[in-house]
Structure formats: structure tokens, C-alpha cells
């Protein structure tokens, strides 16, 4: 709406009415001018003191977990905002719960809120969503649209801020982990040193059969009414490094293999958590690309590194990376020490097989292959996971 033109017309009308001596038309022109003035004032000041904020209940969520998104709109002025529309971008990978949202052309949901905000009022709305896809997801940017009560003209304010949510890969149970490592049952405790570093106190836990009596924490026992023992870091920790190859196809034109990459990430995440629970120091090296980060993925095995690895896996983007050769070359050149390797891959192309064979000679190495195992490389593969494994519906990782 061109206010200047409209005002000019109204003023001309006022002059004409005054010249004609028609007070009724003067009244009409005056009402139109006042209406325009009000609309203009409301349009100019409608966003004064108006704030919009969006907060997430957590920044990192497990796959399938629920999050709460809170939008806050505050109007810090006396002029009420009679109608306000806030359209916020909601990532498509977070399914909205108990509410219906339409899709935008950007393949995101649109959180469309229409409301009124009175003088000095704050409106908070809590929405729930389920994290259905791994990755780094962004809420926002948002846009606010408001105007005068009559809605003659709308004013739009673009809000550039966004909130980030990291959804970790789905973690499955790995029942055959001990078998995978080749040290079933009794062998597992051996992976950790029996000697404990008394300077590295971790905490207390419930007494288990076989715990030394001198480890009992009598104060904690008195508080909990059950036997509690101290736990310290072992002086030495067995380490395993996951080598994750996300290059699914030999050639880029064959596709990205997004589904296979997701399965590879689920396998890697499940192994990380399972190994970490057993007390292994876990590391990760991969040729994958990360969202918002450039450079090779190389996390050295250390105790408690599972969270970092899972977050790294969450950041992986499904793009075909370069071959795994550089990663393997680096590992072959490094002094592995007591570190074992667990290779997770969906292909052995690009000269990967000979390097794996060399790695096997240098350090204990296990290869988990996702998909149909090629005949010529059968002797290199220890375990196999079918490519059509429906990890979204299953809770255990099958190792065949």
C-alpha cells in the first residue's frame, strides 16, 4: 500500500469537500485520514519491543528421543500486536508430535503460529517432536508478520537466528560382541588391567561378587544400606579403534549410498557404545565428511570418548568421500601398540583389500562388512551384516 499516494488522495478529498461545503464529506475524508494515520503508526511501531525466541530442551538427542521446542514471544510495549504470524522452520527429520505442520518447499516443516500478544505480555508455546533422523538439524530462521488490527498491510521481519540439534545415530545392542572380539566371556575382564590407579577415582558402585574387600566404601555403604565399592581407573586400558569407511560405491556416479551410510553409522555407533560399556578405550578414524567441519576424522582411543565419537558420527553427511586408503596408510604408519582395529565397511574397492591384509599382519584387526560379501575378499571379512537389515525396527545388531 502506497501511504503517500493514499494520503494525497485523502487530502485532495478533504480540500474538495471543504470547497464544496459538505461537512459529511469532510467527515469521510477525516475518517479516512485518521484511519491511514493509525495504520501507518501501527505499521511503523508494531515490531518495537517485540521479541521472539526459540529454545530446545536439549542440544543433543538420541535417535528416536523426544525433544521439547519452546517458542517465546514477548511484547515489551503498550501497543498490542493484534495479529501476529510467526513462521519458523522446523527440520523435517524431527517429527512434530500432536500437531500438524505443513511442509515448505525447502523440505522442512513450517511451524506456523497465529496469535495476538497484548501489551507487555509474554506467550510461551511448548511443542514436542521426535528425532527421527540422525544428523545436525537446525530450527529456524523464522519470520514474523504483523500489521494493524484491520490487516490492511502486513510487515514482515526476518529473524536470522537458528537453534541446532544434534541427533545421534541409533544405538543397537551387540549381543555377539565378545564373540566378535574373539575373547568370549572369561576373556573380557582380561582386557582391562587388574592393577588400578588409586589416584584416578571414578566413583562408587554396588558390590559385585569377586570385588576385593579393601575396595568397599563403608561410608557409602552406610548411606545406601547396601555394599558399595570404590572404583578406580585401570592403570592400563585395552584400546580399540574403529576404522569406518563410508565410501559405499567405487564410482561417484553410482550414487551416494545414503541408506548404506546410515547403516554403517548405526553399526559404528552401536559398537562404540558396546565397547565403551565393557571398559574399552574407543577411537575412531574415518574418511567421512562432517557437517560444518573440514578435515580427517581421527579420534585416538581413550576412556570415555564415546560421547565424542557419537557426536562425530552424528555430524557425518551422506556424501561419497574419498577412498579409505589415506586413513589406512596413516594407521599403518603409526605405532599401534596394543590397539586393536575394528574395520566397518561396505566395500573393498580402490585397493582397500591389500591394505587391510597388511593391517591384519601388524595388529589384531576385525572386519565387519555391510552388504553382500564379495567372493574374492571372503577371507578378509570376519563378520557380515545384511544390507537390507532394517535397523529402524530392530534393537539388536545381527553379526553373521
Amino acid at each position, binding site marked *: 500500500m502506497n501511504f503517500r499516494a493514499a494520503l494525497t488522495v485523502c487530502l485532495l478529498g478533504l480540500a474538495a469537500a471543504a470547497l464544496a461545503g459538505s*461537512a459529511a464529506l469532510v467527515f469521510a475524508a477525516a475518517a479516512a485520514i485518521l484511519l491511514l494515520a493509525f495504520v501507518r503508526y501501527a505499521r511503523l511501531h508494531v515490531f518495537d519491543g517485540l521479541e521472539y525466541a526459540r529454545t530446545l530442551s536439549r542440544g543433543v538427542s538420541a535417535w528416536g528421543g523426544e525433544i521439547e521446542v519452546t517458542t517465546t514471544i514477548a511484547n515489551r510495549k503498550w501497543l498490542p500486536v493484534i495479529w501476529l504470524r510467526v513462521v519458523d522452520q522446523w527440520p523435517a527429520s524431527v517429527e512434530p508430535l500432536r500437531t500438524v505442520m505443513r511442509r515448505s518447499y525447502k523440505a522442512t516443516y513450517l511451524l506456523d503460529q497465529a496469535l495476538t500478544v497484548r501489551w507487555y505480555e509474554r506467550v510461551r508455546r511448548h511443542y514436542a517432536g521426535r528425532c527421527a533422523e540422525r544428523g545436525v538439524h537446525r530450527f529456524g530462521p523464522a519470520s514474523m508478520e504483523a500489521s494493524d488490527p484491520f490487516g490492511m498491510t502486513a510487515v514482515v521481519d526476518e529473524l536470522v537466528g537458528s537453534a541446532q540439534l544434534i541427533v545421534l545415530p541409533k544405538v543397537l545392542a551387540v549381543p555377539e560382541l565378545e564373540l566378535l572380539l574373539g575373547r568370549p566371556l572369561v576373556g573380557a575382564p582380561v582386557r582391562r588391567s587388574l592393577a588400578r590407579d588409586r589416584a584416578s577415582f571414578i566413583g562408587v558402585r554396588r558390590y559385585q561378587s569377586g570385588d576385593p574387600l579393601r575396595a568397599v566404601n563403608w561410608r557409602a555403604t552406610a548411606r545406601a544400606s547396601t555394599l558399595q565399592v570404590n572404583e578406580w581407573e585401570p592403570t592400563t586400558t585395552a584400546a580399540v579403534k574403529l576404522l569406518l569407511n563410508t565410501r559405499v560405491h567405487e564410482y561417484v556416479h553410482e550414487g551416494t549410498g545414503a541408506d548404506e551410510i546410515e547403516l554403517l553409522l548405526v553399526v559404528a555407533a552401536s559398537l562404540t557404545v558396546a565397547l565403551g560399556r565393557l571398559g574399552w578405550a574407543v577411537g575412531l578414524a574415518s574418511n567421512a565428511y562432517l557437517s560444518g567441519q573440514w578435515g580427517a576424522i581421527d579420534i585416538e582411543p581413550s576412556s570415555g570418548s564415546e560421547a565424542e565419537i557419537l557426536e562425530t558420527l552424528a555430524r557425518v553427511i551422506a556424501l561419497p568421500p574419498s577412498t579409505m586408503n589415506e586413513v589406512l596408510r596413516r594407521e599403518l604408519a603409526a605405532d599401534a601398540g596394543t590397539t586393536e582395529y575394528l574395520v566397518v565397511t561396505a566395500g573393498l574397492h580402490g585397493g582397500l583389500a591389500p591394505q587391510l591384509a597388511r593391517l591384519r599382519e601388524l595388529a589384531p584387526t576385525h572386519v565387519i562388512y555391510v552388504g553382500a560379501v564379495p567372493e574374492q575378499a571372503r577371507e578378509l571379512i570376519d563378520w557380515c551384516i545384511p544390507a537390507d537389515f532394517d535397523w529402524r525396527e530392530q534393537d539388536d545388531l545381527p553379526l553373521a
Partner: protein
Amino acid sequence: MTSPWLERIALKGLMCLLESYWLAALATMLLLGSLGAMLGLTVIALVTAAGIALVLREGWITEKAAQIASATLLLVLMTLLIVPHVRATETALFGYTVGAVLFSGLVVWLGVGAGRTRAAPEELLARALRVGVMTFLVLLLAHQLDPTRVSAVPIVVATLLTAVVMLAVGRLVAVIGVAERRQRRLLSFWVVAVAVVTVLILIAAAGLAGTFDSKIITAVVGSLGAGLRRAWDVIAYGLAALAYVFTRIIYWFAQLLHVHPPRLQRAPGPLMSASPRPKLAPNTGWDAALYRWLGRALVVFAFVSAALWFVLKIVRRARERGDEGFIEERDYLISAADVARAAGGKLRAAMQRIARLREARPRDPNEALRREYRALERGLAPLGVARAAGTTARAFLLAAVSPAGRTGAAAARQVAGPEAAPAAVGVGGPEASPAAVGASGPAGALADALATAYERARYSRAGVDWSDVEAFRAARMQLLAALPG
């Protein structure tokens, strides 16, 4: 669009209604019918034409059927306009027939346009602006041709109200249509806000229009006074009724406790009968029509708003039976106590400002003259003269204007240094005269007149008036200008 009935029926109806006002005024002016009849005929024709276009757009009828229906409507409308005129006048004027045909065509064309138009807020605004301009031009033309033919006030008010409601409903439909279906909490506040702002704008516009016509100010004040008197009557009757009930209850309790309060005696005399109400001549000007139509329009608007609010509330309840899908919390950033504190602070500041203003501008001329005298003393201070304790104003002024008095003061200041206070002067007593202190010439006469005026303000029972204050001020300026230095 989630509210097709609201869009198609309410908005199309409002569009037709908006177009009908200026068309009816045009018909009344050109075809010499009554405004009410023309308005009814135009609304029916517009709605019918819009309905034909709407059903065609929905695909319920073919284009040919729509054309036949439109042509039939055109013929019926022309017949309804021409036949009664021919019967009444027994002549078929060429000009009238051409006007009727053109008018019928215009009505059908605009009705079909209203039915075809997408009810987007931007298009509604463009339509409202166009209709506003057309209404204004038609009314201006009507006023120039025959001011008594078309009553402009109801058309103006109705056009404004309809346009505002149409725009608001159009935006409402647009917002709710794209937002979540259940987010309808804004409706009630929106309706109230639109109604309040519209009423305020109309009242302010009426006030502005009143400045172009002196009669209207009287009319406004009179109508406001009448309204306030009626309102006060209602409040007073209500309070009296409550007081009666309360008194009866107290009496009943008192009787229960065996207490016999004294009976109230009826007041004799003139209090028993009310003084006769003065009879006012009825206002028959255009302003009276304006306020009459404004009042009617406001009542109609209030009813329409209330009806709309109820309908929308029912619709909202019907659609909000399920969970809203989100939890909403509303709170205020400032409390009522904060508002009261802020308002109290502002009120206090305003009162203090008013008090200062009252202090600065005395309403009593005697006080004003005494302030003028104090200003004179302050004006004389830079010349080195100050009034000594126990010295009368007359003696001080005469001494101040006499060369001897000023010389003595200057000498005293020279001895004490430039930073010293002005030397106190004053000779003689209440009987001091210009001759006694050696003050002569115009300065002496001025000092004498100033002293006389001051004494009148200070000691005389009659005091002074505002003209004396003005004269004192002028004399003070003259005296200060006449004195050297």
C-alpha cells in the same frame, strides 16, 4: 483454504455490500428513486451476480449457463428500474432509459467481478480503496447537483464500517487459513480491537469535521452532555435502588435486635419537586443526521461484532474439541502494581508540574504585582542598590533613582570591592517623597508611581487589577531602561 464458507459467503457478501452503497447513491441521483429501495435492489442484484460467478468458478454450471443467467439478471434489473418509472411518469425518457441500462450493466459487471475475485487481503484493500474513491466522487457530485437528494452521512458511515470489517475478516481468513486450524484464540481480541479502534476513529473524525462547522461543536457538546446526563441518571437510579435495598436490610436487622432507628422525615418544600427541565430546540442540521446515523451504525456494528464473535466462538469450540497440540502459557511482563506505580508516578509528576505552573502564574493580580516588584528589586541589584531592612518600598525606590542614593551605594561598593553585595540604601521613612530624597525627573515620577501601585497592592483593601499589573510591568521596564548602567 480451511474456511471456504467464511471466504465465499461472508467475504463475497461484504464485497457486494461495500459496492452497493455508492451504486445506490448513484442510482438515487440518476434515477430519482429512494435510497432505501435502490440499496435493496442493488444488494440483491450484486449478490445474485456474484453467486453466478461463484458457482461458475466452482464448476457447478457451464459458462453458457452463467452467461444466460447474467443476461437474465440484467434484463430483470433493467425492467425493475424502467417499468415503475414509465408507469409513474407515463413517459419513457431516453436519458432515463440509457441511465438505467448503464446502471444495470455496471451492477451486474461489478457483481460478477466480486464473485470472481480471489479474496486475498491485498485485493480486498485495492477494492476498498477503489470503492472509497468512487463513493466520495458520487457523493461530491450529488452534493453539487442536489444536496437534499442523497443523504451522505449514512452512506459514508456504512461504507467505512463495511470496508473495515471486510478488510479485517479478509486478513483473518488469510491468517487462519494458513496457520494451524486450531489457533483461533486471536479472534475474540481481534474483534474487540477492531470495534474499539473503529469507534474511536469515527468519533475523532466527527470531532475533526466539527471544526469545519461551528454549529457542530454545540451539537457535539450538547449531545455529549445529554448522553452524560442520561448515563448519570441511570447510575443515580441504580445507586438509589441499591441504597434502598441496603437500608431495608439494615432496618430488618435493627428490628431483629429490637433497635428502633429514628424514622426519616421527608424534606418539605422545593426539594419535593424537581425543577422543570429546559426545553431545547431540536437540532435539524446535517450534524444531527451525522450523529444519528453514527449512533445507529455503531449499534449495528456492535451487534454485528457480537454476532460474529459468538459465531466464531461456536466454530472455534467445534473445531477445538481435540488437543491443541501445544501447551500455551501467557503471563504479563509487568504486574498491575507496576502499572499502578508508574501511573501514580506520572500523575504525581503531572500534579507537581501543574503546581509549579500555578506557582509561576499567580491568579491574583495583587500577588502578580508583588512579584513584579520583586523582579524590579532584582533588576536594580546589578546597579548596586539593594533594599535595606526596615526601609519602605517607596523610600527604597526613590533613593535608588536619586543620584545621591546611587552614588553612595557605588562608593560603598568601591570600598568593599567588586564582589561585595549591593549596598543597602534607603533614607527617610514612610513619609519619604521625591523632593525629600532629591529624586526628580521622569525616573523619580516612575519610581513614585511604582511605589504607589505597590502600596495599593500591598496595603489597600481595594487592591489592584490586571491592568495595573500590566502598567507596573511597563513602568518597571522604563525605569530600568532610564537608569544609567
